[in-house]
């Protein structure tokens, strides 16, 4: 009796778990397929190389692509040195103690701050207080603060995975700490650091709330770091919510998903190669 009930429970549980997991996957696929199936068929190359016309009813999304790229570049060029530097400090220059605990707590908290808060902060600090206006620079710097925790944690993981032997060899050859970092640690950690960068690119493509408040929503082609821009996600959001053009919204959405798909595939590929390389 007891034996049969517990096997019955197991059967029921197994069915529930399968149903739960498969229906989740199905819904997720539905979300992607809906946007892709409506947006992809009419998506042509012209869409990527044309400026929007009539508030985005016609034309393409070239300024948004360029703006998103410039903004991401600003964010990465600020956050990468800071993030990698932090990881090196945490792993190579300090023991676990008060300072490292504080830095880690700060990083963890920063990782959880919602994007709208970053938006508010970027708006008062960069846009108004530092007088940068709605611009690529304000948006990029705000984004840099948002991706910093990702870069720190992936770089730290990468450095943590380097065998102790590597350091021993460098020190035994008379290398100083900094020489060891430059010639041994960084080259070995590079693929891991790169993964963090790619993940951050993915995040910056999708970010909306913080960038509406800091980079603006201009449709014009950016000309300098101080130009206001509209990122792809912001463009998608405006097209979809202000009833401008559903067709264009679907196309932009499909382009967004494709872009994220490419970026993520590269990150996964790197990650796998890196894992195999390590083991």
């Amino acid at each position: 009796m007891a034996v049969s009930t517990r096997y019955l429970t197991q059967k029921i549980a197994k069915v529930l778990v399968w149903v739960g997991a498969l229906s989740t996957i199905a819904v997720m696929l539905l979300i992607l397929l809906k946007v892709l199936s409506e947006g992809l068929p009419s998506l042509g190359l012209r869409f990527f190389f044309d400026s929007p016309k009539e508030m985005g009813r016609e034309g393409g999304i070239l300024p948004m692509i360029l703006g998103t790229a410039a903004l991401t570049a600003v964010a990465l060029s600020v956050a990468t040195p800071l993030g990698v530097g932090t990881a090196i400090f945490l792993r190579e220059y300090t023991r676990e103690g008060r300072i490292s605990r504080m830095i880690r707590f700060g990083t963890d908290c920063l990782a959880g701050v919602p994007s709208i808060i970053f938006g508010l902060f970027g708006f008062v600090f960069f846009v108004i207080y530092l007088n940068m206006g709605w611009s690529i620079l304000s948006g990029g710097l705000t984004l840099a603060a948002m991706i910093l925790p990702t870069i720190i944690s992936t770089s730290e993981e990468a450095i943590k995975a380097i065998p102790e032997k590597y350091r021993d060899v460098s020190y035994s050859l008379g290398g100083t700490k900094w020489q060891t970092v430059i010639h041994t640690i960084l080259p070995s950690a590079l693929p891991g650091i790169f993964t963090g960068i790619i993940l951050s690119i993915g995040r910056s493509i999708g970010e909306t709330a913080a960038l509406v408040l800091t980079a603006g929503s201009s449709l014009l082609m950016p000309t300098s770091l101080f130009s206001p821009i509209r990122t792809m996600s912001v463009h998608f959001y405006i097209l979809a919510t202000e009833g401008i053009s559903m067709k264009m919204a679907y196309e932009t959405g499909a382009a967004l998903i494709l872009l994220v798909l490419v970026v993520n595939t590269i990150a996964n590929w790197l990650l796998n190669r890196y894992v195999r390389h390590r083991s």
Partner: protein
Amino acid sequence: MKEKIIEKILLLVALSSVLILGLITIFIFEQGLPLILKVGYRTFLLGERWVPSQGSYGIFPMIVSSFWVTFGALALSIPLGLACTVFLKEWSPPSAGLFLRPAIHLLAAIPSVIYGFWGLVILVPLIRNHLGGPGLSILSGSVILGFMILPTIISISEDSLRALPPTYKEGALALGATHWQTIWRVLIPAARSGIVASIVLGMGRAVGETMAMIMILGNSVKMPTSFLDSARTLTTNIGLEMAYASGDHRQALFATGIVLFVIITLLNSLAIFLSRRRID
């Protein structure tokens, strides 16, 4: 000498995230606190009227809506997340994991506006036609948010299941427990703190989500009375009105940000505390 300087520079670099967190706190409070003090924190937190043009700033309905939406999302994502975790770790063929894990990472990277858009074109009409109400509602917000936080919950709870020593499972099976008993009575309780941490992190993401929620919640400032009511959360209040607010009104939005920031920081600290305990 050079080494000493480099070490100092690296220390400064490493303090950047703490510095940014400090700056965020200072600037948000500096902008928002004067208004809270002006209208009184009780009126601000517990007031039910939000009419900026008449100078009434009460955010109680938004606090309540934020919690409704968040708990609705958790009610969906905790069971589904656990099912997916167990499926991935214990009951799927190993080859499925090779395909599913990257898929989950991908879903975590899909921009939230895409989820919001799907909610707007598929879920909202569905709810309006079959359950009534405006369709733009707490229910649709909860469902979309639930799916958005699933990847967070799945990947972190799977990590914590994976981190358990294999002896736990072997021991339980050797004692004659069924596979399900092993999962339910041994593995999940042993990974409890990691799973709870993943839920708390998901909760933080849910409370903080903005754009997708603006698209599907309907944004009414009334106190919600049912899951089919349209609502406005703390985040959407900021996202909706920041573009044109000025003076006291803008300060009130920053003050809304303070409340949000405090809630999120509490949730984060809880998650950090829980995941630290897992390591020890």
